[in-house]
């Protein structure tokens, strides 16, 4: 969803805010005039009001084509994407759930990914009109078939052009890139959609091109690699107080255990009084006796 904003030279990201994720209000755009806007179509309308319009140069027919191809993406490619990222068991467990859990703070990291998984399954069921839809090879094949056809059609429409409508990007390019880029960049164990995308050279080139032009810093990283990386200094950069928190929590745990042990008598401390005090006491005793 950053894409149109980046295209127009601005950017804002608030991706990992867990409360917003929990309430289902991401992507969200905070504006001074109108507060927070959370649906992509409303965000685009707001941008157009601010005179940022990537479709300004399009002809009427090209505008119509944009609507049509966006519908094609939503009907044919989006269900397969949802399945690949959220429903397919290997991908969900190995990649998506880990990725979200690592980046959301306690305690929502236990609750949110599963909740989102159930929501996505429900959404897929409603989109397909089948209330008892179960994930499985059958469903995967049908969704992949539709998605392969959609990607092939996009490839045929793109041809050898740089963008869908000539040399400058439009909102259709933003939509297509937003749907295809995750496939290109996330390393998934079960990657049938990725394989098909890689076989369509012009689409692959198109995505890499847009990534290099508008997301140069992200072009080098991939979330898949981050998940498998060993904890290193980049982790410490992300959380500067991590070491301090670790030491404090260990000290707290040790202190709590010791205190409990002493109070319940599991551990007793025998104190030996120093000599001076002993002789003082003896004198006192002697005096008392006297």
């Amino acid at each position: 969803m950053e894409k149109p904003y980046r295209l127009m030279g601005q950017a804002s990201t608030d991706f990992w805010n867990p409360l917003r994720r929990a309430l289902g209000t991401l992507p969200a755009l905070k504006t001074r005039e109108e507060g927070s806007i959370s649906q992509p179509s409303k965000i685009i309308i707001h941008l157009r009001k601010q005179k940022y319009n990537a479709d300004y140069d399009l002809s009427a027919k090209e505008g119509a084509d944009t609507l049509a191809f966006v519908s094609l993406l939503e009907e044919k490619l989006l269900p397969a994407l949802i399945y690949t990222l959220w429903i397919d068991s290997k991908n969900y467990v190995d990649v998506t759930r880990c990725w979200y859990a690592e980046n959301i703070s306690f305690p929502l990291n236990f609750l949110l990914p599963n909740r989102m998984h159930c929501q996505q399954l429900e959404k897929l069921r409603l989109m397909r009109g089948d209330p008892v839809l179960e994930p499985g090879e059958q469903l995967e094949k049908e969704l992949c078939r539709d998605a392969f056809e959609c990607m092939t059609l996009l490839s045929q429409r793109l041809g050898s052009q740089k963008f869908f409508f000539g040399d400058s990007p439009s909102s259709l390019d933003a939509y297509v890139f937003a749907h295809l880029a995750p496939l290109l960049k996330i390393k998934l164990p079960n990657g049938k959609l990725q394989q098909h995308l890689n076989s369509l050279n012009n689409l692959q080139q198109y995505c890499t091109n847009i990534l290099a032009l508008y997301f140069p810093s992200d072009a080098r990283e991939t979330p898949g690699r981050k998940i498998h990386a060993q904890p290193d200094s980049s982790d410490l950069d992300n959380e500067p107080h991590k070491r301090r928190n670790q030491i404090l929590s260990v000290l707290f745990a040790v202190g709590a255990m010791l205190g409990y042990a002493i109070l319940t008598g599991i551990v007793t401390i025998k104190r030996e009084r120093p000599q001076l005090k002993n002789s003082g006491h003896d004198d006192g005793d002697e005096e008392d006796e006297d």
Partner: protein
Amino acid sequence: MSLAAEAFVSQIAAAEPWPEKATLYQPLKEDQILLSDSASSLAVQTFLRMCGLPVQVSCCANAEYMSPSGKVPFIHVGNQVVSELGPIVQFIKAKGHSLSDGLDDVQRAEMKAYMELVNNMLLTAELYIQWCDDYTATEISRPRYSSPYSWPLNHILAYQKQWEVQRKMNAIGWSGKSLEQVYEDVSQCCQALSQRLGTQPYFFNKQPTELDALVFGHLFTILTTQLTNDELAEKVKSYTNLLSFCHRIEHTYFKEHDRESQSGSPHHYKGSLP
């Protein structure tokens, strides 16, 4: 249908010629059928006429339950049953009839995209207006949908269907829209179709394709169906080339049939096109 079953059906379909007793099933025309189902059914009938394949239209109260995918219309050809326009087009292609063979790759991509546009925007808007607008649902949709059934089944089925459609609207993000926004979406969709059609007789110049059949099915039904208000029809009427497109197809493919006969007449609630 599973993929293996589909492949098997295609092979069998290719072997047999089109029979004379092919039947198309839809809900009862006068009392039961709703706008969205009527539009889908008319689209399939138009497509079959464009291919020159005869079919009898049979109206049954339980058509929705007989359908393999739960959606109407469906056709019964030989010993195969296929529902919805997309699979029917594939099925008929396997029999050797196709309207889109003459298109090149780019045109085929555009055709599929525009068909998805109609499904995504027009059909969803029709479903929204029928089931998520309280007034229309109470006055028209629920009474019509449940008319063949007696109490209490009629209430149960009608509310169940309404709840199912509302959940779907929620899942695809349409539940937050107001009725005016939905009409605006319909207008946008019609504008896109009108711009794509331009001054040509059909969407891909001289020959009709399944896209023409689908667009005709929806637009004609919207224009000839009496709802609680005329706003939906007015949105379509404001595009004159779409109106003349509908007239042209009605004239070419439906006029030779007797208007009173059930199989030929495409219109349902109101009279003919304005």
